[in-house]
């Protein structure tokens, strides 16, 4: 089996929006399933709602791929629910998420250059040369 350290994260791109949002949620710290659902919904202003089936189906695949792992550490006992499992990004998962973020950033840049995004503020945000 190839070591995860040698795997090129670009080989896994593009990611589905669901998977990318789950990885983004976990990039902000380890979370249990429900916390991921809430994080995704709040960050997207309710535009992306993860069903429990989609969420756990994705978690299963991400665990198998070695992009996320179950965390042994438990949060503050006052906030902890011991019935739940907490997940965190692995080193490979973080590299894949970064690669996808860079890919999307380049795509937005190209869209801005093609005049598909209006306004210089948008261009500046996308990092386009002035």
């Amino acid at each position, binding site marked *: *089996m190839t070591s995860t350290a040698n795997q090129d994260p670009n080989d896994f791109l593009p990611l589905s929006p669901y998977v990318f949002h789950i990885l983004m949620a976990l990039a902000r710290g380890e979370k*249990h*399933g*429900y916390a991921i*659902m*809430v994080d995704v919904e709040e960050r997207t202003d309710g535009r992306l*709602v993860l*069903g*429990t*089936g*989609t*969420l*756990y*189906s994705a*978690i*299963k695949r991400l665990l198998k791929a070695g992009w996320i792992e179950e965390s042994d550490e438990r949060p503050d006992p006052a906030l902890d*629910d011991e*019935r*739940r*499992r907490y997940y965190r990004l692995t080193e490979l998962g973080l590299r894949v998420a970064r690669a996808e973020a860079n890919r999307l950033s380049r795509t937005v840049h190209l869209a801005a250059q093609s005049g598909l995004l209006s306004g210089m503020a948008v261009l500046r945000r996308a990092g386009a040369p002035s």
Partner: protein
Amino acid sequence: MTRDNPLVALTWQVYRLLLMIYPANYRREFGREMSLAFHDYCRRTVRQKGVYGLFQIWLITGVDLVATALMERLTEVREMSSHSVARLLGAIGTLGGLYAAIVGVVWLAVGEQTPDSLPFLPFYTIAIAIGCLGLFLKSDSLGPDARFGAAVAFIGMAMGTVGMVLMLLEQDGGWLMWFIGALLLHPLGLILVGATSQGLPAFWKATPILTGALTIALMVISLAPDGSWLFGLLMVLFGTGWILIGQMPIFRVRAEARA
């Protein structure tokens, strides 16, 4: 813990029942967490949007449950069938090896091939050809050359089977087909599997190489006029080799399950 709104409690109970549509392994792994997450999600939605929010949840959840349960069922069938088919084919290959070994023992005891056993001889070649298929199915993790070797071994034994049937039907070309397929292509394929496979312990790498080499020896012996006893001995060794090779797909399935 605060008491649930009756509609939330009912929604949660229905959801827990619907989880039954997922495969049992999946439910054991994630069922409880899914149920907890759904429960919390319902409570949050009712707090924010009132009970009408539950309708919105069911619009999402209904489609989501059916689609993902179907996907998980398909995944389970695909994974299970690949493993169980490889195990079954490997077991059939082992039986073929056992049969070949028995034929060899009888051969040694009687001193020559008994005419009564002739119609049954193709069975061991069929069984071993099936065993090669099992090897092929499980050889994707051993590397492309090993997979190619397993394919060559299968084609060889399939040719050997056809050749043997043609011989029994006293058709022309049967002996040549059996010779090229079972005694040449098949062992070369086995040697390739053993020599190129990656990640196998030395014992499992050596087994197909030795069995293939023995078969080539069998080919040479079969050309000698008085090599009957030696042919029987090599048949025993060849059969024993295939008893072990037939276990390779089973070994791979177990190794993958452990990994």
